[in-house]
C-alpha cells in the first residue's frame, strides 16, 4: 500500500499545486502574509490553519506583543501580534486581520501557536537558489529570525524562521522553571 507522503509534498514536485510547476523541483512552499505592507513568508508545512481574529484572553505579565491565549478546539494556544513583535506600529484589528495557526518546534516539544498578521497574501514555491541570505543589518527584524530574502514579482519577501522567532525571549519554554516544577 502506498501512502502519500504529506510531509515531503512541498519539497517534491508538488502534484497538488498548479503553481510554478516547472520551478518546483527543489522548491519549498511558503505562505506569505502582509505586515505593514511588507510581505513575509513562512514554511507552509508549518501552517495548521488560518482563522479570523477573535477576542482572546489576556495573560498577565506578558510582553505586549503576546496578545493572549485562545481556545483552539480545546487546546489553549498563545497568540502573538507579529507587528508588535517586530516593532511595527500597532493597528486596529480589522476584517482582514487573521490569525495564522502554526506548529512550532521547541526542543522536543511541538507547540501550536498563533500569529496575528494584517492579511494572508500568497503561496509560493521557491527553489533554494532563489533565496538570498539575510542581510546582517537594516531591518526591524532581528536577522536571526530571517532565513532569507526572495524577490518575487518585484516585491521582496522576507522568509521567517518560525522556530527561532517563536522560541525567542519571553516565548521560550523556561527549562529551568519546568524542571523545578
Amino acid at each position, binding site marked *: 500500500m502506498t501512502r502519500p507522503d504529506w510531509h515531503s509534498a512541498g519539497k517534491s514536485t508538488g502534484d497538488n499545486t498548479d503553481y510554478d510547476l516547472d520551478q518546483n523541483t527543489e522548491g519549498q512552499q511558503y505562505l506569505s502574509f502582509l505586515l505593514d505592507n511588507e510581505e513575509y513568508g513562512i514554511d507552509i508545512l508549518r501552517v495548521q490553519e488560518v482563522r479570523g481574529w477573535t*477576542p*482572546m*484572553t*489576556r*495573560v*498577565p*505579565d*506578558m510582553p505586549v506583543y503576546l496578545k*493572549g*491565549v*485562545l*481556545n483552539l*478546539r*480545546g*487546546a*489553549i*494556544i*498563545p497568540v502573538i501580534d507579529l507587528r508588535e513583535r517586530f516593532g511595527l506600529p500597532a493597528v486596529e484589528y480589522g476584517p482582514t486581520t487573521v490569525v495564522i495557526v502554526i506548529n512550532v518546534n521547541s526542543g522536543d516539544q511541538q*507547540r*501550536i*501557536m498563533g500569529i496575528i498578521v494584517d492579511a494572508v497574501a500568497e503561496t509560493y514555491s521557491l527553489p533554494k537558489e532563489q533565496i538570498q541570505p539575510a542581510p546582517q543589518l537594516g531591518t526591524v527584524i532581528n536577522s536571526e529570525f530571517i532565513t532569507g530574502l526572495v524577490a518575487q514579482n518585484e516585491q521582496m519577501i522576507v522568509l521567517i524562521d518560525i522556530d527561532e522567532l517563536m522560541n525567542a525571549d519571553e*516565548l*521560550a*519554554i*523556561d527549562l529551568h*522553571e*519546568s524542571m523545578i*516544577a
Partner: protein
Amino acid sequence: MSIDLSQFISTFLEESYEGLEIMENGLLNLDSGDHETINTIFRAAHSIKGGAGTFGFDQVGEFTHNVETLLDNLRKERQPVTPAIINLLLESVDAIRALLAATQNGPATDTDQINQLDLRLLQAINGELESTGPASDAEHTQSTAVDETYDSAMPVTRPSSKHAGEEQASPGQLSSANWQIYFKPAPTLLQQGHEPWFLLEALQELGDVETEAFTQDIPPLTELDPYTLHLSWQLNLNADCSEAEIREIFEWIEDDCELTILNNADAQQSRTEQTGAGWHISFTPSKQMMQLGHEPVFMLEALQQLGSASISALTDELPSLAELNPHELCLRWQIELQSDCDESQIREIFEWVEDDCDLQIIPTGTATHRQPPETEAQPVAASSDGPEIDNSLDTSVKNSSLAKNEPSASIEPSANKEPSANKEPTANIEPSANKEPTANIEPSANKESSANKESSANKESSANKEPSANKEPSANNEPSANKEPSANIGPSANKEPSANKEPSTTTEAVSSVSPKTNTPNQNTEKKNSSTLNRVTTEASSVRVELEKIDILVNRVGELVITQAMLSQIGQDIAEIPSVDTERLMAGLEQLERNTRDLQEDVMRVRMFPISFVFNRFPRLVHDISTKLEKKVELRISGEQTEIDKTVMEKIGDPLVHLIRNALDHGLETPQQRLAMGKPETGTLQLNAYHQSGFFIIDIIDDGRGIDEQKVRQKAIKQGLIAPEQSLSSGEIHDLLFSPGFSTSDQVSDLSGRGVGMDVVRRNIEALGGNIQISSEPGQGTLFSVSLPLTLAIMDGQLIRLHDETYIIPLISIIETILAKESDLSPIAGQHNLLLFRDEYVPLISLHKLFNLPETDQVSSGQLIAIVESAGQKAGLIVDELFGQQQVVIKSLEQNFKRIDGLTGATILGDGSVALILDIAGLIKRGLDYSLTQAAHQRTIVLNKPPLEEQV
C-alpha cells in the same frame, strides 16, 4: 516464523514488574502453610522466567529459575518457610528487578551480588533437599487438594493423586518409560501466535512419537473459523526423557492448553484398578441452582431408582460459616452407579439442570489405552458416538479428574478462578438463551449485561430466575430442549443485543443438532467453550496507553464545554416569551445528565485503586524497621479506594517520605516503648478514603509525637523564627515543612538531612492537595494528606478582576468576605493587613500583580477572598464573585509555557479561556512584593505575627 519480539518486550517488562510486586507482597504476607500465597508467588516467578526465556534475557531467566526452584520446594513443603528464606527471596526479587532494569538501561547490574545471591539460593535449595523424606511426601499428598488451584492454571497433571507424591518428589528423575501425552490446546492458541506443529516437532526430537489427532471438535465447514484450533492430539512418546523435558516444550502455552503427561507405567497400573460395570457420575451444580428452583436431592433420588448408587458429597467448596450464603449451593457429588442403564437415562435425570451444572458421566467398564488419559468428559462427549468413546475411558481419567475440582477448571487460562466463578457465565448465558423473544427477555438481557459487570459470584438475582422459570414449560417438548442449547452456541449469546438475534440463530442451528443423544453433549461442550471465552473477557483487562485515555478525557472535556454552551443558549432562548422551549430544555437537560455521566465514566477509567502505591509499603516498612531495629506493625485500610492515575503516580514518593519519617522520628525503639508502658511493637496505619470529593490518606503512628518545644528551639536556632515569637501549635507543626528544617541531631541515611518535608508539601500542593499534621505528645502523630480525585477537573470559583475572569481553585478558598474598615490596617502606607478570625492576613492586590488598572485604596465593602496555601493565609482583592463551577483544567505548558501565578486555564461555557490562579505562587509573589517593607514592622506591631518569613 520470524516475529519481531521486541515490540512485546515492554509488555513483558511491565508484566514482570507487576509480577515482582505480587511476589514481594506475597512474601511479606507469607505464613508457612499458606499454599495459596506460595502458589501465587511461584506463578509470578514462573511467568517472569518464561518471559525472560522468550525474550532472551538469559540472566534473568537463569536467576529466576533458581528462585522458582526454591519456591517450588516451599510450595511442596519440602522446605519450611523460614524468615531467612523469605529475606533471601525478597533480596532475589530486588535482584530480578535490577536485572530487568538492566535490560532496559544497558548493563549496570552488580554481577557479583547476583552471583552471590544465586549461590545462596542454591544453598537454600540444596540444604533442604536432603531433608526431603517420606514425611514431607505424606504431607504433600494431603495438601493436594489445596494445590488444585495451581493445577488448574498450569495443568501439572498427576496420573492419579496417589502417585503424585512420588512423581513430584523426583521431578528431575529420568525415566525410560514411554510417555502418553494428551495435548488439547485452547481454541485461541493460533491467535496468540503459537504453532502446535512446532511443539510436535520438538517432541520428535526427544524420541519416537506416535501422533494421533482428534478431529471430532471440528465444526461443519460453513462454521469453520480458520483462526480457531479445533484439534487435539494424543501422542505416544517413546523416549528416554524426564517429564520436565516434555513439559519444557509446552512451557509457553501451558496456560492455554490442556496437557496431560502420563507415564505408561502409571497408566497401566491405574488401568488394573478398574472396577466392574456401571457409571461414574460427577455432578457439580452451579451455585445458583437452588435459586433457579432446582433441588439436587431429587436428582440423586432419581438416580437411585436406576440402580444402586453410592453417593458421596464433596464439601471442599464449602466456605466458612461466616461467608456461607444459604441460597448458594456449594456442594458437589460423586456418584458410583451400579446399573446397566444407558447414558441417556442418566442424562435425562439431569436434563433440567444440564446448563447449570458440570456433569460427567463416565462408564466404569472396559478401557482401552487409545483414549487420552485425562480426556475431559466434554471433548469426548462431543463426539458423535458418545457412549462408545465414553466406554473406552480409562479409569485413571476418573481418578485424576476427581482429584481436580472439575475438569473445566483446567481449561481456564486464568489462575485464581474459583470453580463457582467458572460456572457463573454459564448461568448468565442461560436467561438470554431463552429463545422466545417475549417481553421477559428484555429485562433479563438487560439484567444480564449489568450483572456481567460485577465479577462477584452472587449476582444471580431473582430477575434471572423468571426467564428460567419460563423455560421449564417450553423445555418440556423435545425440539425446544434442543433449541435451547443451540442458542448457547451463538457466539454473541453473551451480548445483550443478541437477545433480538437469537430466534433466527436458533432455528438455523437446530437443524444441525438434531439427534437427541448428541444434543446434551454438544451443549456441554459448546457451553464450555463459551464459558471459556466469557471468563477470559470477565477476568481480563485491556492495556491501553494512557495517552489514548487522556485524549478521551480531553474530548469529553470538550463535550462538557459544548454542553455548557448549549445550555446557556437554551436559557437565553427560554427567556424569549413567544417561543416554546419545553422540548428544547428537556433535551438539554438530558444532554447535561448524559454528559456528566459520560465524563464521570471516562474519569473512572483513569482511576486506580491506591493499592498500587500501598503495595510497596509493606516491604518498605519491613526494610526500614529492620534497619532501625524497631518493631512495627503496618496496618493498611482502604487500599481499594480509587484515585486518578496521575495523582497516584506522583503521591508515591511523598508518602514514602512520610512513612520513613514516621518510622524514624515517630516510633520509638522497643526499649523506649516498653519503658513508656507502650506495647513493644509500634503501629503504623495507612488509611485511605474519600471525603467530600477529596482523596484522603492518613498516616498515623503511635510513636512519641511531635515535641513542640524541641521544634521551636531548633527553629530559633536555625533562624526560622524570632526567639520572642509565640506560635500556635499549628504554626509549630508548619515549621516542620520549612526548607532545611530538621529536628534530628544527627544525619542518618534515612532522614535528618532537612530535605524532605518541604518537598513533601510542595509536591502535594502541586497536585492541588494539602497536608495537615496533628500530634499528641507521647501518643503519636497523624499526617493527613488530602488530594483531589483527579487532576483533570477542579472545582473553581469564578472571579472578576477589572474586566477579566479568573478562577480560584475552590480548595484554596477559606472564605470570601466583605472587608470592614475596622479590620483593615495599613502597613507602610499602602499595603494592608486584614484582621480575619483573630489573625492578621496580608492582602494581595491581584490588580497590581497582573498590571490591571488598580482600584483605589482598599476600603470598606471590598470583596476579599481569603485563601490559604502552605499554611500561609492571604487575602486576595477581587472585584466580583461569579459562580462556582467544575472546570476542566487545561495546561498552558502544552502550547506555551508555565506562567507564574497561574496553574493553567480552562474553557468557559462561551468558549472563551479563563486562567486559573495558582494560589501558592501568588502568595509567594504577592508577599515578595510587600514583605521587605512590611515584614519587620509587622513582627513588632502585631503581637502575633500571621506568618513565618520562610518564603
